[in-house]
């Protein structure tokens, strides 16, 4: 236990360094929040498997390292960025390096007048009204130690504000690039996306790395989907295989707001994700889909919460996991239908395929319904590749590897197909093909 205390001390100590760098910002309006969050961080204990919410995910491996905040900006070139772009996708590119917004590498092609896509640090220093109005309003840090850590260290990230009626045609592709050598960085991008009434945008959060080893990404994104606004959100997690990724996303849905999210998780040795969506008015629509692929000793955990606080809202959730080797997966999906939320439709499904004897999945779909006129369903499956289907494919001359690849692809296909941005869909298909379709030995 003393080790863990020591680790906490290190984080608290690094806050002093962080604070010294704040300069004038120290007096900004959010600094009191930082302080409050820091106190919370100091009070809270790191979760153990005795905590219900962390029952199947031990963060002990994370606490073995002494991560230091990445305080200095790092520069990269356009060539570095090019490698991470999707083929045939015209997009607005936003680059964040080690948690710092890079103005040089950010290129916004086609955004309507009035739309703001900028550095979160800049938004803080210029007293952005959006930060004032929305920051930390949807993400409660009081019971989540990593959220309190993020909030305490709030410095940079991405702010997107789409004014009423504006439509951003090209997707906003945000690259969170980690570039570290031997430093064990703590990287904490903090993001806020606000879509006002009748606006529309596609936002891609893409976590990548350049030859980086052990580092810790702790990211929080708050999303406000205003009345009748439409947000198509994608998150691709391609961190280094030795990295730690803790991601949180809180979504506020207003009247007849429409939010769709696809989470594709591939990297990191340990990843924990908390996605919370709340219907704060009637008629909203929310889709949370995800696909995770794990191998080696990777550990994946997603906890989702969809809060039907108001009537006439629809939610759809579909997560699929493909686990190989000794990897582990955790799905915990909670749907709450509050007493007022009549005429709710809530559907949730989690399917997992285990490709090896050592892989393990813990899945826990939870429905809590307090209204009586609702349609809800949930289900979870864990299985292996279908032997009959394997034999059928082989009996047609298709080799073992190809047959496996075909079946794995088929398993993932419904989640992939629901990704609306075609170049991203193609990219995911390619990843699957590369991963499971090793070229046969030439004869």
């Amino acid at each position, binding site marked *: 236990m003393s080790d863990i205390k020591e680790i906490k001390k290190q984080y608290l100590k690094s806050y002093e360094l962080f604070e010294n760098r704040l300069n004038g910002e120290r007096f900004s309006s959010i600094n009191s929040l930082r302080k409050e969050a820091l106190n919370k961080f100091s009070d809270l204990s790191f979760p153990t498997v005795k905590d219900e919410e962390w029952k199947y995910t031990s963060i002990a491996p994370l606490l073995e390292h002494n991560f230091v905040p990445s305080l200095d900006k790092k520069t990269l070139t356009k060539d570095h960025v090019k490698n991470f772009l999707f083929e045939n996708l015209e997009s607005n590119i936003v680059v964040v390096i080690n948690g710092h917004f890079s103005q040089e590498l950010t290129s916004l092609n086609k955004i309507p007048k009035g739309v703001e896509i900028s550095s979160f640090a800049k938004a803080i220093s210029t007293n952005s009204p959006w930060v004032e109005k929305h920051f930390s309003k949807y993400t409660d840090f009081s019971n989540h130690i990593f959220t309190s850590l993020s909030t305490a260290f709030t410095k940079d990230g991405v702010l997107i504000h789409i004014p009423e009626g504006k439509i951003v045609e090209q997707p906003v592709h945000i690259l969170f690039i980690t570039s570290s050598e031997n430093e064990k960085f703590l990287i904490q991008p903090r993001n806020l996306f606000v879509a006002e009434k009748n606006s529309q945008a596609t936002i891609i959060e893409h976590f990548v790395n350049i030859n980086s080893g052990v580092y810790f990404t702790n990211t929080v994104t708050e999303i406000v989907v205003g009345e009748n606004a439409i947000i198509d959100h994608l998150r691709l997690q391609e961190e280094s295989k030795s990295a730690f990724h803790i991601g949180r996303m809180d979504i506020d849905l207003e009247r007849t707001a429409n939010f769709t999210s696809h989470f594709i998780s591939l990297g990191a040795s340990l990843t924990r994700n908390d996605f919370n969506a709340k219907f704060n008015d009637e008629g909203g629509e929310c889709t949370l889909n995800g696909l995770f692929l794990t191998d080696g000793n990777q550990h994946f955990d997603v906890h989702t919460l969809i809060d039907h606080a108001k009537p006439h809202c629809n939610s759809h959730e579909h997560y699929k996991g493909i686990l190989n080797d000794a990897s582990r997966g955790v799905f915990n999906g909670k749907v709450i239908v509050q007493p007022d939320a009549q005429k709710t439709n809530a559907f949730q499904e989690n399917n997992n395929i285990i490709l090896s004897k050592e892989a393990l999945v813990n899945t826990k779909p939870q429905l809590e319904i307090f209204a009586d006129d609702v349609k809800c369903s949930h289900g979870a499956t864990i299985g292996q590749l279908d032997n009959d289907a394997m034999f059928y494919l082989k*009996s047609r001359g*298709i080799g073992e590897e190809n047959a496996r690849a075909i079946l794995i692809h088929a398993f993932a296909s419904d989640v992939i197909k629901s990704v609306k941005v075609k170049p991203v869909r193609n990219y995911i298909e390619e990843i699957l093909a590369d991963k499971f379709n090793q070229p046969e030995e030439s004869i």
Partner: protein
Amino acid sequence: MLEIKNLHANIDGKKILKGINLKINAGEIHAIMGPNGSGKSTLAQVLAGREEYEVTKGEIIYEGKNLLEMPPEDRAREGVFLAFQYPVEIPGVSSTNLLKTALNEIRKHRGLEQVDAMEFLTLIKEKTKLVELDQQLLSRSVNEGFSGGEKKRNEIFQMAVLEPKLAILDETDSGLDIDALRIVAKGVNTLKSKENAVIVVTHYQRLLDYLIPDFVHVLYNGKIVKSGGKKLAFELEEKGYDWIKEDKNELVIN
């Protein structure tokens, strides 16, 4: 083409095949008949290479090669085709994708060039006509939501595309109405040549009205107990299998 010698096979420790001997030459159609549970489907599955069946004794020589040593995909690439009694539904995999992959793997094995998209489409079009299969079914997931008749026709369609040397039809006629039965038989007859052979596993004589066998074998209790020409099938239809069973029992007693 195919020689089965004293074949014994088990599943889950249960003896199913108890010494099958069978010789098939190119250009021949063999019908294998017999009551339920006699081992007909097991024989078909063992030929295709289903791993769940354990061959405990005997050998299968196919085109001079030891078939039992080949994994199922190699058997298919060498020209063995099984039309499944219960075709498997594979959600998320289109028939077109399955067939194109299969065809190209088989061609690669035989040292032939891959077919391009255009050639493949032409081939598919031609072969769907043969079994009167709605081409739209091909863009759907394999066998998913197909009617029983469509599933069986789809098997024959796959056979038509892959052009096997040895086709094994495992109760392809079961559950088919007379029109579908004619279509299936027509398909097989069109594909039939001097270079290939067909094993028709069936319970009924019905299909054999359209698909004339050169030999009929009766399988009972894991052994071929009677072989003959086409007439044997009629005899079976008339008398049922009981007389075979009685014969067999007498043999055992004696």
